[in-house]
């Protein structure tokens, strides 16, 4: 990749990362924090009542039940945040293994079904390429789950002529893909994930094509040369 393009891509990646961090903070703020606050308020109210008069079982039992539910829900939301952003031992595991881990995680978190096919003998890829492919698949599966309205997706991992190819397909509601490159490239906030995928793969010398149309599902193909960034 050209040095100027590379510089630009690196800057955009930084911006995307910041926006992603922002999203995590907001998720924690809107989810667990509100629920923990509510749970604590209920407990404090119970404490205050108990100082003045005996609290009957009919009073404390439903309250404890509500607090318990709030705490369970908070933990559940924290689970997803922790799992989503924890790096999966990239240095220790090969590409196939980290991708398999991601698919287990996606199925476990969302009850979505991901059919996965892979060639048995994939070439080794560099660490940055492995990370890029992982994060792109993560975004693609997350989009399929959140936006495509499907509970099923397909992932294929293959290798041809010095390239590794990752495909993600769903038969969901689809959309009109925005331009991701050139002067018309989308700057809209809802397209940040797509831009992130595109920037990540270009940083390691790869390409991303996205085919989708309303009602026609989505097909993402990522190709990256095996040794481009060595």
């Amino acid at each position, binding site marked *: 990749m050209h040095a100027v393009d590379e510089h630009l891509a690196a800057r955009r990646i930084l911006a995307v990362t910041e926006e992603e961090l922002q999203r995590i903070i907001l998720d924690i703020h809107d989810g667990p924090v509100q629920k923990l606050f509510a749970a604590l308020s209920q407990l404090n109210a119970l404490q205050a009542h108990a100082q003045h008069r005996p609290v009957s079982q009919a009073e404390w039992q439903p309250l404890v039940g509500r607090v318990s539910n709030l705490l369970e829900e908070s*933990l559940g939301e*924290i689970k997803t945040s*922790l799992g989503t952003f924890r790096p*999966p031992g990239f240095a220790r595991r090969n590409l196939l293994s980290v991708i398999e881990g991601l698919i*287990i995680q996606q*199925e*476990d978190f969302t009850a979505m079904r991901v059919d996965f096919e892979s060639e048995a003998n994939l070439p080794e890829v560099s660490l940055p390429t492995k990370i890029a492919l992982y994060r792109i698949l993560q975004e693609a599966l997350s989009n399929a789950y959140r936006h495509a309205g499907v509970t099923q997706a397909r992932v294929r991992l293959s290798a041809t002529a010095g390239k590794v190819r990752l495909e993600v397909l769903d038969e969901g509601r689809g959309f009109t893909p925005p331009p991701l490159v050139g002067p018309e490239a989308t700057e809209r906030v809802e397209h940040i994930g797509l831009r992130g995928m595109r920037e990540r793969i270009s940083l390691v010398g790869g390409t991303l094509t996205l085919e989708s149309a309303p009602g026609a599902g989505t097909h993402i193909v990522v190709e990256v040369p095996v040794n481009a960034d060595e």
Partner: protein
Amino acid sequence: MSEPIRIVLADDHELVLEGLRGLLADEPDIEVVATATDGAALLILIEQHQPDVAVMDLQMPTLDGLSCLAEIRRRALSVRVLALTAFSDGESIQSALEGGADGFALKTAPPRQTIEAIRQVAHGNLVFPPAARKWLQGRRADQPPPALSEREWEVLTLVAQGQTNPQIAEALSVSENTVKFHLQNIFPKLNVTNRTEAAGVFFKLQGSRK
């Protein structure tokens, strides 16, 4: 009533130990025989108390859970292991399965699920999310069937039923040492390091062999 399930708990967070202990105090079928706050201490406790189940955090000082698990398997300690962690990402699940844990419980799930997992693991069940079991089976399916002798198949079948070495020895009218000898031959043929993994391979192969 049958004997209670004897367990040791290991977690470097005192709050978690305290919470679990408090909850388990009301479960008559489970007895906490000891607790540890690091991996090295856990290993000593397991050898000392020979519990049925070790419930351990995967992130601990001195020896983390996975190293501890490897050591338990290397020393062929007969304890069943339930990994307890706040991290439910795919890699944590993979590592626990590959390391030969019998189960995987989450600190981000309601604690009663951990208690149920202790019971399941104690009864010889593999307790992992369904997505992880699917992955494990797919991985095993890629390998050619191992060349086991009829006797080795018999031993493996009993292992898969959750039987201990003395039980297998009795069932086959052989000595316990003979059972151990067979297992030493079976594990490398299946490319596994422990009984749980061997049982996993057995269930996968069952269909194809009949």
